[in-house]
């Protein structure tokens, strides 16, 4: 009968291998996604887009990097404001150019 | 201040480590003043038991600092994208004046904690704990280093503001440099660096063999280990990294840790660090062997540490050799 210690070590090894497998899985996933990513990047380049369309509820959050210096409802450039995505993303800090 | 998981983890680790060691200082002071094994009182017994806690805490601190060292360098490299002009860890560390001091202090903490653990390990082999006062005096000295490391690291992270124009490795390590030492290290001629490296490795391996064979000259091995560490680091910066990057003017001690280079840096640094800390430990154990109660155990410890040290340096040498051998870059023309 195998000893509990050996079983435990074996289990931990398996779990560690599974963790290693996530890296492999991730690498496969990334290489699968590469054409998709490239396509998106190409679209961005062709259209000259600047931002992700993750945050579309307010007119200044779709293009975060293009927001006004004083966008509406935004009391302070760093204020977490009313829209949920606004709490997720602050307006860009570097608007002055340099 | 940048809010980043790795930064929070690093601050947490060094803060707690400093706090733990600081909290042990009053106890260490009591030991230095009051330790008396002949005394059978309960106070003495309590003191003895407390030493187990301190030793366990120091082991945790050492493990955490080791992990933190790796994490720190890794994170510095990763943060390079946040700073204009920073292309790798060097750039990130140059963002404010506290970057490199933090790294150096972290290195110091790692080696000092390693030495302390060797001291503790050896002392625990002697039935009368002959080194206990030395050990706890050393702990008192270790505390300010740990606190300093935590404070300097705090200052470094607090001072970080994304998008500060910084120099990156290409300007720092090749011409027009900012730091004198790094520059002089980088401009070390390749031939000289490699011969120094070969010489110091040979010396450290020989002294290690002496410890292994005759169980003496541990102090020499420790000294040579320090020398080999310094020379090894310089050789990595000036020459070995160049072979890895295959670019004659790219000297950077951090980029070899990157994924682009297959994390090969770890294969260089880990053996070098193991070799050095074990070499130092062998010196300490050799020195401890002069105490009567340790005269049989300490040389054994010294021997096994020396074995690890020799193994580390040998591996380091082999990896360096392999890197040079497989590189497409040719720095020396072989005259047939």
């Amino acid at each position, binding site marked *: 009968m195998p000893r509990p210690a050996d079983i435990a070590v074996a289990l931990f090894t398996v779990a560690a291998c599974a963790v290693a497998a996530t890296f492999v899985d991730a690498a496969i996933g990334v290489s699968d996604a590469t054409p998709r990513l490239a396509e998106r990047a190409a679209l961005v380049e062709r*259209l000259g*887009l600047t931002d992700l369309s993750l945050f579309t*509820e307010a007119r200044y959050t779709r293009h975060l990097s293009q927001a006004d210096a004083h966008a509406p409802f935004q009391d302070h450039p760093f204020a977490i404001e009313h829209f949920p*995505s606004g709490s997720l993303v602050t307006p860009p800090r570097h608007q002055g150019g340099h | 201040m940048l809010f980043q998981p790795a930064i929070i983890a690093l601050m947490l680790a060094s803060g707690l480590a400093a706090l733990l060691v600081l909290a042990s200082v009053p106890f260490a002071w009591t030991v230095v003043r009051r330790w008396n094994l002949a005394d059978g009182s309960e106070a003495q017994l309590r003191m003895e038991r407390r030493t187990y806690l301190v030793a366990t805490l120091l082991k945790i601190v050492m493990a955490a600092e080791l992990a933190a060292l790796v994490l720190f360098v890794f994170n510095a490299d990763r943060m390079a994208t946040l700073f204009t002009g920073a292309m790798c860890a060097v750039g990130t560390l140059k963002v404010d004046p506290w970057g490199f001091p933090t790294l150096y202090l972290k290195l110091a903490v790692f080696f000092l904690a390693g030495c302390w653990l060797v001291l503790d390990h050896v002392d625990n082999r002697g039935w009368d704990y002959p080194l206990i006062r030395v050990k706890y005096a050393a702990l008192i000295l270790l505390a300010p280093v740990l606190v300093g490391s935590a404070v300097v690291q705090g200052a470094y992270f607090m001072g970080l503001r994304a998008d500060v124009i910084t120099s990156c490795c290409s300007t720092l390590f090749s011409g027009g440099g900012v730091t004198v030492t790094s520059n002089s290290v980088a401009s070390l001629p390749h031939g000289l660096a490699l011969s120094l490296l070969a010489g110091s490795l040979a010396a450290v391996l020989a002294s290690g063999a002496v410890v292994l064979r005759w169980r003496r000259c541990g102090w020499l091995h420790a000294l040579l280990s320090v020398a080999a560490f310094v020379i090894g680091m310089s050789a990595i910066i000036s020459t070995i990294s160049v072979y890895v990057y295959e670019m004659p003017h790219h000297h950077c001690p951090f980029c070899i840790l990157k994924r682009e280079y297959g994390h090969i840096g770890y294969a260089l640094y880990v053996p070098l660090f193991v070799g050095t800390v074990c070499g130092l430990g062998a010196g300490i154990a050799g020195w401890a062997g002069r105490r009567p109660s340790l005269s049989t155990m300490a040389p054994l410890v010294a021997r096994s540490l020396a074995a690890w040290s020799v193994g580390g340096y040998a591996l380091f040498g082999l990896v360096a050799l392999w890197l040079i051998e497989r590189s497409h870059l040719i720095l020396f023309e072989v005259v047939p």
Partner: protein
Amino acid sequence: MPVWLNRQRALLDFALSSLGRRLGKTLGLAVVYTLIVAVLASVMLFSHAIRREAAQVLAGTPELLVQRLVAGRHDMIPAERLDAIRAVRGVKSAEGRLWGYLFDPAAAANYTLMVPADRVVEAGSAVVGSGVADVRGVAVGDLMSFRAHDGNLVQFRIKDVIDNDSALVSADLFLVSETDFRRLFGVPADRFTDIVVAVRNPREVRTVAEKIDAALPDTRIILRDEILRTYESVFDWREGILLVLLVGAILAFAIFAWDKASGLSAEEKREIGILKAVGWETSDVIRLKAMEGTVVSLGAFLAGYLLAYLHVFHWGAALFAPVLKGWAVMYPEFQLTPFVDELQVATLFFFTVFPYTLATVVPIWRAATVDPDQVMR
């Protein structure tokens, strides 16, 4: 070496049986621990993946954008600025862009109206992103109409829907012709939204930007680097804030672990006393207890990380989608690319295992230093 190995094996055996004897307590601890790791790991994996996704997708963003500011507000830029910019040394090209937001009351959603540079859209027709098509339920050939700035109706026939694959960047796009754009918003022919500048030598971007800034003081200039960096730090920042909040959870857990470790039952104390009496040394007991802790924390870490990985990359990050979606009417459907970072896994390990170890060390030590003769008393 074999002695050392035998001892570790024997101690591990005993640690496991000791954990098994307190199955309820062990499982309770392990489950809470695993969940905490899983939540933390999900936050880290998710934000890293989205950060990398943004960095890769936006790599082709215009190098340099020039926008006119009037009283701190973005304003249309006159076409003659194009010539001024083209005159700056190092500028390869400068083109005016036309884009803006359009609120569609029928869908209560904001679209991004844009005149595409890469294709010609005929007047009266439009190419829409998949989000727009979904929210309005339109397909190729359907008609959509909006009220222009002067109250007139402008009609568009949908000519094409942008592939769903690129929804992450294109879900809300509404591509129209220049004529339609100007008619809809009343933008004069000599005005653009902003200007895209290409630079001859990429290393010179910053210098060129400074020159443009000096030549056109009423503009602001946005660099690609800045956009990328902003996204990077924006998600970092958010991840950090979340983690700081979660540190509360970690702390609570550390206290919980401390309590569990220090609140040793009478039975456990008796066991330790017996072990010491029959010849176990204090450091053996500490090692035994440390092993118990390691089994729990390592197990929880591995299980928690694996759960988080599955959750974020294979189960669609179900927990985070609501936060990200917010009130957005249009939310792009996208499959997160599994970018995983070793640094993150290392940080996570540090974050979860280190506090636990520290929280349990003092109680363990206290338990391990009971008098060996107490079982005789």
